[in-house]
């Protein structure tokens, strides 16, 4: 019941808000009023306009000529409303004839929605499509357009990846329907965008590295975006066939408009700050903790740095460090008031034949943590021209240049783990006397080095010129848990990873209209981006590393560092031919679209690097011609796709709708016989409000029921998995002996694959039913939708028994997953005097369940990779449970005494624990299952008194059960205010930071202050199942009882509600601008982003604990001339 309530708490909130907007009636004397209603645009009469006495249910409608007549009480007002027009309320006063001009309402039914291969008026939509417009997109301060969608659209989930500029958000449309690649397809101005590494190839770590960390969609300046449409169900998305099963996001950019040239200028400046930090132990508490932990395990002696009796000389290390001062590692990592700057200008206009649009932008985002930033320059232009009545041509070109510095590496991870006595700066370095070389950078080093001449090297009488001239041995200075000095590694003198990305997206078309209504369009799109990564690794970095290697092994032994340049070129060429026929016969409206498409895309990589570099100045970081230590390599990949699409749409009197779409796709990824697939869809809609019998229900402005069914594909799988390839990586050396330990290295080959020839795509079958309505004179808009998407033949990389010995696990179409749920969207707008106010909200629920996996065998989804919220986590996939759930032990209690230990162990055995060392203060875990038997393959439901891996159970779903966003706002005399909340709920995450920060079993990684409340004989924490955080066990090195095993101790609710954006703006009144006729509009605003977060999550931030999401305050100006 509690769950039920939680899930529906949000709609209830909406109801409360709504009830505030209904107000009472007026009553007075009657008089007669008549008049005519015409369109403000063309002066034609509008029939069927509903005229209601404001605040009552009494009213009438206009006749075919737009005339009306009505009796009204005196002092009343009349509200005129009609579908597609903006409602108008007029005070009757003493008038007896009231003629009304209705303005067409572009924000409502006749709003044009981009649906892919065309546009359609909102009232005519039959599929599930969410849309957002530029006015909302502009509010996002991120360079990434995806983040603008966050919380704005039902059915579209967008996570904030981190506080680091340039990181990729995760976008999921209506749940997660595959354990492969679940990212939607992006189509920008009709060009399906591809990116190497975004597809299945990302399961390979090297490919993820090749792709790089920079979100290439941030190459689209959000200020240039006119609208974003998300195609959510099959009937909407079937036009994109084999790529569409995870949804399609159509981004349409701004175009020129007929009219005099206009100039838009916008500028904003903001500052970002991370709101929370971890509370960590200081040195005395740290020493106490680990002294206790070591004493609690008889297998270990107290390491010298915790032991006051260790009095080694300073050059012998291994000294007691407990007298050292506490170093704060977090503060120095912060980049306070990190800047976000955005400036852009647009010029656009046109005449009856030609429209043009030119835009340029500059954007700079600093990271709230040291070491990263991203800078973007962008240009965009488009021109469309009618060459003759029947020929139209257009070109769009978009260029963006991004510089991205990615030096921070691991962010807070190192800062949180470093022993509190490990120094950052040289002045705090206890062992400074041992290593004078560190003076150069001003940072304390992590290791002391012992350098000895290498007798093998010619300098010292040897014969091996390849041998390093010196041999180096290391002592880690601050204990075994000394952290790599990530702070020093963000210094560009020591370490640098920089990306330059240039992206070109161009698109040219020629459209013929030989007969009115028949359009034939040829279209060629090119997307080419060039991603250069330049890296510098100084040999001095060894001093700050805990895995230093021998710096003299670089180059000839006297090199200053390693230089690398990697050049990735992505290309995407799409050729399309589209025929579109639009015809009306009386009330019968027909639209047929045919399309043929040929797409080729891929990438090439060239890498060059040298180990031999002798200069210090960063300006000279170029690869020299010194061949001996220079390496180069290249690789490429290529994909091809062809498709034929037909869509037929019919409607009768904008009342009954039928859409049928068929797409046939061929993909190069599959064997010839399994390459082609057909994806059909059908959608029906009925606009009930157009029926005569509805005309009495005047509070309904529009009401539509729509339903759709269809199939979509997902081709994202390893290409050529149907072939057995030859791997040429292994090496082995023959011939060592007689003093030569190297021998000669030979290249080897083997066959790593287990080919599956019948591999084909995943198929999603979607069912969708929805209601769209507009009520009370366009005040309320609502959409309720139910969706059901079954994805079958999911490409599962199956794990064969180890004894099969195949190196690459084969991929087989076997699994299936269902996602279903509701989507709600509700809007309200009203006015009191000069005050306009509005509310809009959306909410999506998801039920996700795995229906089938290979051999019914649960497994761990390591594929979740890149862009997934689950990166690096071992998340389980099993039939009957949601994808990527947490699977672990259930903590049952803490032993309070040795008797309790003995009692428990007399009944149970815990084979995850070292029985000899379990003691009071340790956890015990629930025995819930037994071993597999003939009946049960994986575990039996009958407990066996043995706690082992069989006793792991479901401890949480990582797919949010619901997510939502809502905005309230108002405008008053040029002042506008909007407050936007976004949230997710019914979701769990394994808190790895907490598991690490309160584990107490390591050799000395720093811990959260929470561990001060650990179990000790004098502080016998009792187990409180409702407060797992404070139910801490004893400290014991090596964790022999397995207190830190993967369990529900760390599976936390990760839901949150963020005050995502609050904006206060002021539009200067015309009276102020009037004197300068060329200024049309000026708006000033301040806004806050991620201002506040409501959450139970005990980590730093429910979305990212390592690079937390900053609070950003921005001020800006938008002006039109």
């Amino acid at each position: 019941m509690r769950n039920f309530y939680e899930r529906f708490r949000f709609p209830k909130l909406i109801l409360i808000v709504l009830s505030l907007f209904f107000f009472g009636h007026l009553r007075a004397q009657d008089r007669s009023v008549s008049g005519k209603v015409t369109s403000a645009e063309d002066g034609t009469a509008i029939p069927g306009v509903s005229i209601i006495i404001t605040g009552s249910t009494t009213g009438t409608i206009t006749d075919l000529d737009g005339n009306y007549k009505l009796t009204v009480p005196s002092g009343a007002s009349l509200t005129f409303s009609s579908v597609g027009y903006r409602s108008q309320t007029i005070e009757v006063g003493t008038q007896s004839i009231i003629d009304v001009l209705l303005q067409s309402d572009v924000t409502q039914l006749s709003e044009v929605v981009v649906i892919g291969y065309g546009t359609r008026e909102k009232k005519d939509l039959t599929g599930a499509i969410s849309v957002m417009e530029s006015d909302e997109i502009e509010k996002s301060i991120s360079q990434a357009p995806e983040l603008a969608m966050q919380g704005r659209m039902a059915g579209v989930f967008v996570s904030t990846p981190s506080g680091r500029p340039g990181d990729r958000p995760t976008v999921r449309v209506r749940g997660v329907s595959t354990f492969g690649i679940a990212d939607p397809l992006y189509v920008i101005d009709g060009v399906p965008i591809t990116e190497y590494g975004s597809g299945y190839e990302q399961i390979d770590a090297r490919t993820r590295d090749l792709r790089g960390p920079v979100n290439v969609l941030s190459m689209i300046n959000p200020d240039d975006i006119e609208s974003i449409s998300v195609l959510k169900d099959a009937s909407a998305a079937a036009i994109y066939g084999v790529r569409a099963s995870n949804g399609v996001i159509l981004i349409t950019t701004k175009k020129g408009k007929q009219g005099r040239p206009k100039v838009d200028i916008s500028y904003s400046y903001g500052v970002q700050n991370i709101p929370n930090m971890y509370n960590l132990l200081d040195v005395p508490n740290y020493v106490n903790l680990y002294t206790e932990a070591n004493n609690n395990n008889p297998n270990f002696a107290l390491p010298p740095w915790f032991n006051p009796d260790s009095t080694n000389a300073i050059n012998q290390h291994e000294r007691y460090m407990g007298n050292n001062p506490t170093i704060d590692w977090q503060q120095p990592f912060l980049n306070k008031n990190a800047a976000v700057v955005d400036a852009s200008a647009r010029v656009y206009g046109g005449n009856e034949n030609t429209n043009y649009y030119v835009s340029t932008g500059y954007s700079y985002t600093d990271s709230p943590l040291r070491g990263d930033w991203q800078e973007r320059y962008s240009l965009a232009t488009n021109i469309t021209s009618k060459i003759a009545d029947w020929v139209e041509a257009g070109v769009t070109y978009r260029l963006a240049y991004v510089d991205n510095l990615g030096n921070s590496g691991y962010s807070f991870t190192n800062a949180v783990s470093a022993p509190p006595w490990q120094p950052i700066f040289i002045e705090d370095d206890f062992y400074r006397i041992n290593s004078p070389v560190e003076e150069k950078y001003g940072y304390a080093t992590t290791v002391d080095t012992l350098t000895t001449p290498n007798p093998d090297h010619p300098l010292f009488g040897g014969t091996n010129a390849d041998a390093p001239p010196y041999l180096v041995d290391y002592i880690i200075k601050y204990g075994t848990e000394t952290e790599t000095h990530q702070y020093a590694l963000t210094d560009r003198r020591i370490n640098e990873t920089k990306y330059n990305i240039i992206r070109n997206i161009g698109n040219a078309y020629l459209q013929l209209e030989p007969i009115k209504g028949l359009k034939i369009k040829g279209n060629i799109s090119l997307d080419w981006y060039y991603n250069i990564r330049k890296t510098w690794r100084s040999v001095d970095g060894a001093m700050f590393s805990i895995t230093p290697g021998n710096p003299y092994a670089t180059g000839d032994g006297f090199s200053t560092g390693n230089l690398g340049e990697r050049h990735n070129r992505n290309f995407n060429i799409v050729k399309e031919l589209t025929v579109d026929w639009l015809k009306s016969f009386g009330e019968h409206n027909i639209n047929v679209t045919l399309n043929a498409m040929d797409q080729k895309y891929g990438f090439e990589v060239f890498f060059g690097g040298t180990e031999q570099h002798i200069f210090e100045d960063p300006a000279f970081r170029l690869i020299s011609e010194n061949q001996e230590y220079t390496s180069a390599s290249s690789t490429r990949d290529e994909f091809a796709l062809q498709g034929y699409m037909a869509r037929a749409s019919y409607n009768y009197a904008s009342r009954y709708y039928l859409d049928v779409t068929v797409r046939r796709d061929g993909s190069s990824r599959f064997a010839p016989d399994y390459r082609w697939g057909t994806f059909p869809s059908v959608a029906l809609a009925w606009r009930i409000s157009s029926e005569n019998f509805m005309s009495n229900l005047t509070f309904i402005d529009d009401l539509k029921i729509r339903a759709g069914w269809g199939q979509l594909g997902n081709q994202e799988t390893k290409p050529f998995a149907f072939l057995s390839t030859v791997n040429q990586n292994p090496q082995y050396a023959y011939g060592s002996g007689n003093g030569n330990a190297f021998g000669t290295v030979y290249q080897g080959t083997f066959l790593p694959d287990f080919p599956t020839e019948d591999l084909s795509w995943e198929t999603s079958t979607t069912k969708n039913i929805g209601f769209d309505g507009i009520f009370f004179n366009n005040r309320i808009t609502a959409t309720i939708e139910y969706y059901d998407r079954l994805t079958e033949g999911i490409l599962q990389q199956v794990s064969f028994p180890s004894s099969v010995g195949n190196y690459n696990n084969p991929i087989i179409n076997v699994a299936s997953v269902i996602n279903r749920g509701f989507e709600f969207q509700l809007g309200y707008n009203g006015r009191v005097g000069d005050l306009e106010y509005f509310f809009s909200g959306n909410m999506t629920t998801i039920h996700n369940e795995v229906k089938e996996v290979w051999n019914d065998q649960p497994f761990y989804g390591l594929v979740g990779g890149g862009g997934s919220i689950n990166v690096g986590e071992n998340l389980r996939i099993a039939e009957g449970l949601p994808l990527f759930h947490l699977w672990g032990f259930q903590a049952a209690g803490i032993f309070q005494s040795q008797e309790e230990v003995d009692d428990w162990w007399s009944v149970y055995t815990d084979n995850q624990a070292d029985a000899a060392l379990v003691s009071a203060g340790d956890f015990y875990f629930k025995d819930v299952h037994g071993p597999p038997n003939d009946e049960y393959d994986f575990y039996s439901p009958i407990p066996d008194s043995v706690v082992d891996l069989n006793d792991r159970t479901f401890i949480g779903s990582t797919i949010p059960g619901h997510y939502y966003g809502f905005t309230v706002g108002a405008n008053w005399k040029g002042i506008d205010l909007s407050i936007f909340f976004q949230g997710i709920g019914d979701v769990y995450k394994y808190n790895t930071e907490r598991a690490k920060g309160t584990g107490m079993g390591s050799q000395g990684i720093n811990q959260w202050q929470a561990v001060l409340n650990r179990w000790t004989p004098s502080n016998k924490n009792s187990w409180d199942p409702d407060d797992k955080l404070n139910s801490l066990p004893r400290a014991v090195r090596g964790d022999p009882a397995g207190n830190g095993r993967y369990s529900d101790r760390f599976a936390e609710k990760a839901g949150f509600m963020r005050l995502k954006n609050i904006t206060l703006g002021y539009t200067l009144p015309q009276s102020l601008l009037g004197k300068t006729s060329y200024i049309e509009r000026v708006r000033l605003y301040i806004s806050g982003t991620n201002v506040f977060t409501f959450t139970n999550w005990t980590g730093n931030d429910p979305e990212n604990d390592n690079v937390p999401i900053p609070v950003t305050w921005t001020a800006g100006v938008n002006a039109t001339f």
Partner: protein
Amino acid sequence: MKALIYSLLILLALISTIACNEENLDLKPLTETEANYFTQELDYERSVVALYSKLADHYTYNNNNWEHEFFLLPGDDITSVNAYAYEVFSTLQPGDGDLNRAYDLYYQLINRTNTFLEKIAMDEEREKSVYASINTRDNHKGEALFLRGLTNFMLWNYFGTSPVINERINSQDAINPPSSDGIQLLDQAIADFTDAAALLPSSWPDVYRGRATSNSANGFLGKAQVFKASWTGDNGLYSQAISSFDKISGKSLVANYRDNFSINSENNDESLFEVQNSNPTATDNVWLSNDDFTVIGTMSAFYGFFNNHWSFWDGTPWVATEKLINAIDPDDPRLPEIVNTADKHIQKYILEDQLTNTGVGSLNNFRMLRYADVLLLKAEALNETGNQNEAIALINQVRARARNMGSTGEPADLATGASQDQVRQWIRDERLVELAGEGQRWLDLRRWHKAGHINLSNFDFSSDTQSFNIQMPKHLLYPIPTGEVDLNKNVKQNEGY
């Protein structure tokens, strides 16, 4: 009408440029495919390289996940205070990472050898072999059989009942091979070694030093036969082992014991087979796998647990047991070569070592079989077949080599005329010392237990960890890893796990 005609013309032009040619979908993978491979001798030669490299994977640093505890810790020669499952025994679980990795690597090598043997058979059926010399093909086949034999031998020793697989599995119908019984794996190893011995050359040119020879095969064949004899009590096998050992030619004990663990004397006269650890052509990146990365995938060995190298993060070095230190005569010149009595650190491989260019991995070849081992095994076979004096003579050969390194006359020769039991004890003691820290001890202990010569239930393992707890017969075998039992319905877990 004009518009229509022009439109049609332009349309034709558009169609001709855009037209979908379905051949556009016929792309090629970036690498050679099996269908076009094995068409020249070099393809086979390179495939042999990859067989050896798979074996080498067991001995690498492997991105912090070295698996050496799997074979170094369970005996009574090395110990650690840290409660490693392989030291404690009772905490050993089927889900253990090293266990799964070792098993995976063994079966990957089985897969590679079976695939290679399939391709060799393909060449044998060809009208004209791609080999210039059939002799080379036989050698290659011998190498594959030898490596499969070695793998089956290891599988039998550690896991006992895992499947015997002699054919490449490439159909989904065959992915659930059944458990093997008793000594099936060992028998398969013996068969493989026997076949390999007949095909392998007695030596290779210097540039190919380190590849398997008939000596390698006969050495392991004899060893496997001794193991089978002690496991089954079938004494006839000892004679077979002796005759296998007798086929070894040109091998001798090197003068200096240390040369068996030195980078300066790899593949020496005493060596029958060793893993050829080296530095890849560019960098030995110990965090990257040999199979996934060319020129930087690691090829080195790892010994950091012996000398507590910084890359051995555990910080609790694996040290000599008290028992081992006490077993070595203080005057035995081998003592400082085996252990530093001050800190108990094992000295083998460390005293003359060279790290690869990233400073973690070692170039020092891991020695898998050396002549001293063969001599002691042969001594054991002779002793079990009643030739005590001949056996003692062989033990004394090993002791004489040790003695000759120093000046004290220790270890002295053992006197002839001892009882079979006495000689058994001497062999056990000599093997403990001579082969200390080489990963042999556990394999010896378990078979002697099975033969009834010792009882591991109350055996002195001299472990430093308080958690030590062994149960017999359960711990004679490791558990079958989860990567097998969870996925293969035809495989049974070993008794007790």
